């Protein structure tokens, strides 16, 4: 812990206190959903932010986590907690497979974005047709409230569980930043050839990153199933979640610990405000999201965290200047 981590701690504690202040379903629903998106975005951020490999298909991992968690419970009667853990493991495995296939072929940049998108679409088409996934009708997990089944009637508990997962990944990302692996990953992002010349195994580094990234995003999918107790191909493997994960990380600041959480909270608050003003016009919040993405790339490539850093720097310079004047 350094002083750098205080804002992070403050945000996490503030979210944890919300369910104590209100039990309004709309607020708690909003928080759980936004935290699930934040978790998916944290996963994207490990590969896209730190590794510089822009995936357009993180739905592949989110959906694998969601479907494996649901299928194990519905078809095989596996316990909810075990299903959750195996969902994450399956997501990591799919991540490793997709990563191995695409990185071994040397795909990067636009090509990598395209191939991840295609993998997610293949999974969506298969999930929409295969009998084990319930086909187009989707899968309903049986409602059996109880801590033993990883189902809670009180939504506040889900807020805390989602927050605990997000906080866990915050710590993980922070430690990754300071680790040898984190440094190698950033080196590969900045200049793969140079990193390799210095002895970094680029393929192994990227594989490790995509596996970790996929596991985190799969956790978001598994949590989604435990909360909504329903999944279908469009929800699990649809492009919406790939876009949400990328967007939240980009808006908050790619390659920063806190970026994905800040991005998800800001975007979804913005979405709610837009919906409140525009009424029931479908898609109006997503119009704003799209424009935010263009604006972020154009004016704030490091997202909100980058803006905050610039602001802090300017204030510090001012303070120094006024001290010198006095």
């Amino acid at each position: 812990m350094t002083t750098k981590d205080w804002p992070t701690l403050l945000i996490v504690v503030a979210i944890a206190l919300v369910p104590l202040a209100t039990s309004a379903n709309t607020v708690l629903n909003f928080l759980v959903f936004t935290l699930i998106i934040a978790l998916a975005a944290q996963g994207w951020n490990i590969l896209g932010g730190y590794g510089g490999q822009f995936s357009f298909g993180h739905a592949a991992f989110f959906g694998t986590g969601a479907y494996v968690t649901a299928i194990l419970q519905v078809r095989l009667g596996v316990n909810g907690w075990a299903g959750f853990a195996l969902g994450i493991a399956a997501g990591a495995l799919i991540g490793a497979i997709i990563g191995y296939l695409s990185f071994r072929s040397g795909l990067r940049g636009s090509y990598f974005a395209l191939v991840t998108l295609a993998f997610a679409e293949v999974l969506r088409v298969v999930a929409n047709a295969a009998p084990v996934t319930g086909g187009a009708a989707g899968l309903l997990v049986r409602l059996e409230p109880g801590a033993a089944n990883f189902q809670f009637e009180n939504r506040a508990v889900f807020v805390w569980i989602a927050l605990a997962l997000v906080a866990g990944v915050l710590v993980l990302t922070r430690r990754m930043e300071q680790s040898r692996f984190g440094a190698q990953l950033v080196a590969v992002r900045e200049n793969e050839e140079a990193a390799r010349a210095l002895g970094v195994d680029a393929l192994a580094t990227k594989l490790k990153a995509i596996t970790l990234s996929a596991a985190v995003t799969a956790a978001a999918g598994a949590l989604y199933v435990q909360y909504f107790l329903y999944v279908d191909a469009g929800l699990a493997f649809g492009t919406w979640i790939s876009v949400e994960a990328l967007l939240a990380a980009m808006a908050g600041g790619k390659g920063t610990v806190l970026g994905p959480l800040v991005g998800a909270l800001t975007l979804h608050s913005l979405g709610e405000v837009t919906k409140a003003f525009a009424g029931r016009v479908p898609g109006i919040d997503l119009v704003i999201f799209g424009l935010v993405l263009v604006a972020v790339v154009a004016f704030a490539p490091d997202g909100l965290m980058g803006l905050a850093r610039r602001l802090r720097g300017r204030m510090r310079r001012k303070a120094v200047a006024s001290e010198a004047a006095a």
Partner: protein
Amino acid sequence: MYPPAIIAEAALNGLLQGAVYALVALGLTLIYGVLHIINFAHGVLLTAAMFAVWAAQTWLGLDPYVSILIVAPLFFGIGYALQRFVIGPASHGDDGNILLVTLGLAIALENGLLALFRSDTRTLAGEAGFAVVPVGPFLLSQPKLVGFVVTLLVAALLWLLLDRTDTGRAIRAVAKEKLGASLVGIDVQHTYAVTFGLGCACLGIAAALLLPSFYVNPRVGNAFVLVAFTIVVLGGMGSIPGALIGGLVIGVVEALCGLYLGDSLGQLGIFLIFILVLLIRPTGLFGAKA
């Protein structure tokens, strides 16, 4: 097994359908070949063009084929403006940024169309979409046959434009070596925008060819965009003959997969080709070494 006549007819209809795919892919590959960017907004621009064709018939009473004369120049203008005033300035010349900017545009436009037109599916009035033409022993869909012929025509025109005109020479020069091109006095940003406009004009024409036998809703472009990506990757990014042949191949593959696997799994063949080509030979069949 199906009798050969049915397989042949499916393949032939697939070939015709593939021509329109090729036209969509032609726009994509032209933009890639010159600007070296993957335009994620391509699908939603096609949707927008289809709405324009629909509106021209429903509100102005224009025949879809006549509306090409309005929609194609209109989309040239839209494409020119998008590249010149939004995509170019916003992306600071970085490839990753361009990808994200076009993705942002795609999200905003698609949902803008959703807000305007709601998610209802619309078709053109009239029975023209069901007309068939007997060719030898086969019955072929008339709008698809028209689409096939017009696509070949457009491809030929595009080739003439690139090969014979000053604009075309400028485009080819910028594609090969943009610094050199600007040294000899070519306005690179203008040429980029013209190329993007041409790609969008292809979409305008494709929309008019598609709509008589298809439908339009705010998400319809998504179905085409992955197919178009597949064609472009298969044919080689930036290769115009590659896009034509790739489009025809994909049309046939889709029709045959649909025949054997059913409609919902039929798309699978396309995605698998896409992934395999990317993994094994990302430069495609006709593409130059990257």
